[in-house]
């Protein structure tokens, strides 16, 4: 059974938390009326709650260790998902099933569900785009949202000023973002990991602040309204129809992105990115142009963000700078890390969890973001390498007679 020592430890932990949360949880002052409310009941809840939680955490840890030691005996029990991903006879039906589910989604669920699923799928694409930069090439980008903003504002402004349609702007938004990626990337990509992180963060903020302050250009904080939804051969659509239509556009984009990202990862370029992540100096000594290779990764990621940005503007029908804060970059980065860096399936799972979670946590009303933050921490603590870790495809050589590269897990 549970040893007494652990109970004592839990008691100590609960005492500590009672102390820790004392000023914030217990005391509430009204500085005007000069009244102090002492909410001692909160202290009791905290002490009791942390006692129970610490016991639960301990039990969980013990079980995890047991499982780990059992695993060692069985040697490399691969996670189910990896085994499925490796076996084509499991993988293909699964992909088809997922796709069928994706296609029939708007018919099975309400408009609201379709709408948030559209958002989630947009983040899948954003996550996959950032994954090229962070997960594959190993460049920590905290200002990814800047490129997203460029895409969104491209559509909003080109539509407002030149009356350009969604389909025309879609590639333009992506290209503009990629172009900006090159401009920014050129001077800063030689910076080391965390310095690059803060510079990209700063860049993201600069873009947002310019959009906020340069009224003549972007209409400032009040934003641009009445952006048309994508047209479908000039047909007028109901709101629900429009949502469904955008859902399918995004779904197609997701499929294209997965296809492209997958191809890129398994190419000469993809190998170079991986190598760059592992050892820059060795890479250069192998004749890989560090700056150029990084720049390609950076601007490809930006391209995708710009793409989704255009979709974002079309879906929301309104853009203002409030949508492009640092928190947004942090969420997209969390998708990549939480899902499992460099893993396509991981990013998809990560995006679905992180974007749908706050929506389904609405039931918790004001505790929503509290729970979100806690879940982020807990997931990282218990699965630091991400939900789906390191399912990298690697080149395997089959047979000496027919030297042909077959791609396997």
């Amino acid at each position, binding site marked *: 059974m549970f040893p007494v020592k652990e109970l004592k430890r839990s008691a100590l932990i609960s005492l500590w938390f009672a102390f820790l949360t004392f000023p914030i949880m217990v005391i509430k002052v*009204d*500085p*005007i009326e000069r009244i102090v*409310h002492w909410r001692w009941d909160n202290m009791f809840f905290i002490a009791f709650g942390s006692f129970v939680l610490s016991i639960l955490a301990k039990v969980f840890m013990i079980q995890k260790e047991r499982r780990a030691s059992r695993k060692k005996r069985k040697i490399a029990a691969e996670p189910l998902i990896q085994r499925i991903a490796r076996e084509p006879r499991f993988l*293909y039906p699964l992909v*088809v099933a997922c*796709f*069928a589910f994706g*296609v*029939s989604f*708007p*018919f099975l669920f*309400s*408009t*609201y*569900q*379709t*709408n*948030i699923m559209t*958002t989630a799928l947009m983040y899948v694409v954003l996550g996959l785009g950032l994954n090229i930069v962070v997960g594959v090439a190993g460049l920590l980008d905290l200002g990814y949202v800047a490129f997203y903003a460029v895409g969104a504002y491209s559509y909003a402004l080109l539509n407002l000023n030149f009356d350009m349609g969604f389909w025309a702007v879609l590639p333009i938004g992506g290209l503009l973002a990629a172009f900006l990626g090159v401009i920014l990337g050129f001077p800063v990509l030689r910076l080391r990991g965390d310095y690059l992180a803060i510079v990209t963060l700063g860049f993201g903020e600069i873009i947002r602040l310019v959009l*906020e*302050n340069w*009224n003549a250009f972007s209409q*400032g*904080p*009040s*934003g641009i*309204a*009445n952006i048309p939804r994508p047209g*479908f051969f000039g*047909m007028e*659509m*109901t*709101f*629900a*129809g429009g*949502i*469904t*239509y955008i859902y*399918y556009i995004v779904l*197609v984009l997701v499929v294209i992105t997965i296809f492209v990202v997958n191809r890129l990862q398994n190419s000469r370029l993809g190998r170079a990115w991986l190598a760059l992540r592992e050892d820059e100096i060795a890479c250069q000594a192998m004749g890989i142009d560090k700056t150029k290779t990084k720049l390609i990764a950076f601007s490809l990621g930006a391209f995708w963000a710009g793409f989704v940005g255009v979709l*974002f503007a079309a*879906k*929301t*029908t*309104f*853009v*203002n700078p*409030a*949508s492009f804060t640092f928190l947004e970059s942090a969420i997209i980065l969390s998708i990549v890390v939480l899902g499992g860096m460099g893993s396509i399936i991981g990013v998809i799972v990560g995006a679905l969890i992180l974007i749908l979670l706050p*929506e389904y946590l*609405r039931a918790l*009303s*004001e505790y*929503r*973001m509290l729970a979100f933050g806690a879940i982020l921490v807990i997931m990282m603590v218990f699965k630091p390498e991400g939900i789906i870790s390191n399912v990298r495809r690697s080149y395997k050589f089959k047979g000496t007679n027919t030297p042909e590269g077959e791609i396997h897990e």
Partner: protein
Amino acid sequence: MQSGLKKKLLVAALSLGFAMAVPVAGMASDTIKLGVAGAQSGDLASYGLPTVKAAELVVAMYNAKGGINGKKVELLIEDDVCKPEVATNTATKLVTDGVHVVLGHICSGATKAALPIYKEAGVVVMSPSATNPGLTQSGDYPNFFRTIASDDAQAQTEVDFAINVIGSKKIAVVHDKGDYGKGLAEFAKKFIEESGKAEVVLFEGVTPGAVDYTAIVQKIKRKGADTVIFGGYHPEASKIVSMIKKKRLKVTFISDDGVKDDTFIKVAGKNAEGVYASGPNDNSANPLSTEAIDAHKKAYKEDPGAFYENAYSAALALLNAIEKAGSTDMDAIVKALQTEKVDTPVGKIHFDARGDAVGVGFAMYVVKDGKYVEVK
């Protein structure tokens, strides 16, 4: 073969999708569903949460009386973090849940993003705080109403007051770079320039949440401004006012509805003395206003926050309109809102054809002995 099948499936699904376009209307329910949407977490939560509390109190009051036409009022509270993209999700969720009327959203941007969705679904929306003029003046949103004055109306009041009453000659227009503050500041600048009686010596934004506002205050001083018109909310206003006092600067400080909030006086303390702010007509004599504030103090043991009275009034106006219309149909509610006058904490109001409240009336206030009093 497989990809061919996929393609066919996709085409089939797409065509089906447009053919059906899935109308998900709220079924006739036995409750009146009042949606409350706005920022309830994140940096702007302090402007959204008071609205939730106002709605809770009004609904509790109605339900205690037995509801509307025998139906209980049910609250659907949804967070939009003041972000447009989340607001569309919020709106879609409310519409899918069969909401009848919506109190919200809080920020103009989020409101603009959400309105087309409500319009399509035939839902009346009333905001306690979205002041962007375009919301009512563009004519795009027949389902939109508000219990707060639009930016241009407020700016006009402020500028008239500054020029005609105070006699300002050199005015510094400062804003918080936000949707509300900057919009208002731009109108103020425009009106000052049009009047020709005073000049704008400074037009600048401050960063909300910055640790220090010394530099902007020194700049106001250097430009020789005799008056500051500030567009924004009370946190920044109180920081600037305190800094002005600290720097021994003598200027008249005029601000807006976002500052005409008791929290401003509490936070700025004695530095608030002499600050002017525009706001709805004096309603301290209005028993409904006292009642609303007392209800809040009783229920939450603290003073109400920003836009509380506007939200309280909006909730009353919405529920009253449903009661008078005897239906939750959009056109009927709109008609009731435009014709039926209702007693609220901000006055006896109804709404004009564009959706702005009539009867709210705007006045200038000044802080005197720790209280806002109307300038006669």
